[in-house]
């Protein structure tokens, strides 16, 4: 069978815009694994693809929206979450997923992240965290570890990184989980869970960046980075997110937050119904 026919036989073929494959991501980049897990989650849940919207920001992973065969939008840098907020509120039937990177979501878009989490807007944020700005050639960002070498930290990074799951928890997310691209089964299960849950969810995916960040920091090949993930990952359930700081020797993975809280959309609809009811009551008086 030739490659084209084989592509169509791939179990996830119908979820991809095949004409845009292969994607732009480098060899060994974790973005493809993240996308793969997301599509598997969609497949297993058998959701109506017409009701799913994938929104991304700018950066390598920003191209993800364009590869998924659902309604999708590639916004400006950092603005995927407020755009998604507008989409979700305007049409509550839609399942709205933001797939973007650590720089996009937590530096330029950081304010939007905390406020969407605080409001508990029913959107699912899947963040590829590769510890740097890959698209622009490897500059430091809000998740770059202390002392790491990037093109804009030529003497080593002197900024403290964000702990994303802690930030999500503190901001009010109802679900926050972290996995590496090695735990594909758990990652998929997590995405499925978030998709079925009401409220603001963050799934952080620690991802190799073999061509840029990992190479600059002499972390080895993509396989070696994945092996490092295996070595240092510790699975916990309901671990205190405040203590889940990522270090060279330990990456705490698992679900950190899994709570129930009414979403913004639900409260908005309830309020609107009440306002209308009250008005009608007054009018008939």
């Amino acid at each position, binding site marked *: 069978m030739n490659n084209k026919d084989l592509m169509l036989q791939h179990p996830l073929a119908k979820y991809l815009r095949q004409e845009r494959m292969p994607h732009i991501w480098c060899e*060994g980049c974790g973005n493809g694994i993240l996308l793969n897990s997301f599509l598997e989650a969609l497949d297993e849940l058998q959701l109506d693809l017409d009701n799913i919207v994938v929104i991304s920001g700018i950066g390598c992973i920003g191209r993800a929206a364009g590869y998924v065969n659902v309604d999708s939008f590639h916004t400006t840098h950092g603005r995927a979450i407020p755009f998604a907020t507008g989409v979700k509120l305007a049409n509550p039937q839609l399942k709205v997923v933001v797939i973007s990177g650590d720089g996009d979501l937590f530096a330029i878009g950081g304010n939007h992240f905390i406020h969407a989490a605080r409001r508990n807007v029913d959107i699912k944020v899947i963040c590829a965290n590769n510890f740097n700005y890959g698209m622009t050639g490897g500059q430091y960002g809000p998740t770059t570890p202390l002392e790491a070498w990037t093109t804009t930290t030529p003497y080593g990074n002197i900024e403290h990184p964000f702990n994303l799951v802690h930030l999500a928890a503190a901001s009010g997310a109802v679900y926050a989980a972290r996995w590496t691209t090695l735990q594909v089964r758990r990652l998929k299960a997590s995405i499925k869970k978030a998709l079925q849950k009401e409220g603001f969810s963050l799934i952080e995916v620690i991802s190799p960046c073999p061509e840029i960040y990992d190479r600059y920091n002499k972390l080895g090949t993509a396989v070696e980075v994945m092996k490092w993930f295996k070595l240092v990952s510790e699975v916990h359930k309901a671990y205190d997110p405040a203590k889940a700081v990522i270090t060279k020797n330990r990456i705490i993975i698992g679900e950190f937050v899994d709570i129930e809280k009414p979403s913004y959309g639900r409260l908005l609809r309830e309020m609107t119904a009440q306002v209308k009811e009250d008005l009608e009551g007054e009018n008939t008086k």
Partner: protein
Amino acid sequence: MTPQKLWRKPLDAEKIGLPKAEIHVITDLCKGCDFCIEFCPKKVLEKSNKLNKRGAYPPKVVDEDNCALCSFCTAICPEFAVFTIEKERREGSESGEKQ
């Protein structure tokens, strides 16, 4: 007691049989990250020496019979370039087809 002594052959092994896999590699999509080769629990894949049009050496199937159909290769492939299909059950299977 050593762990070996705890290990036993399942009683219904003869009846159930093992799945038989068909592994497909979409060679042109592969960028050569080797995740599928490295993380296959059964070491079914190996790096080939045939350069694809993207300048990578895609994996080749060296031991299809040993594939447990866990589909970890499918899930970990960033390129959607490998997948497995359950072809039929091996001898000992009741129906010979996927249940």
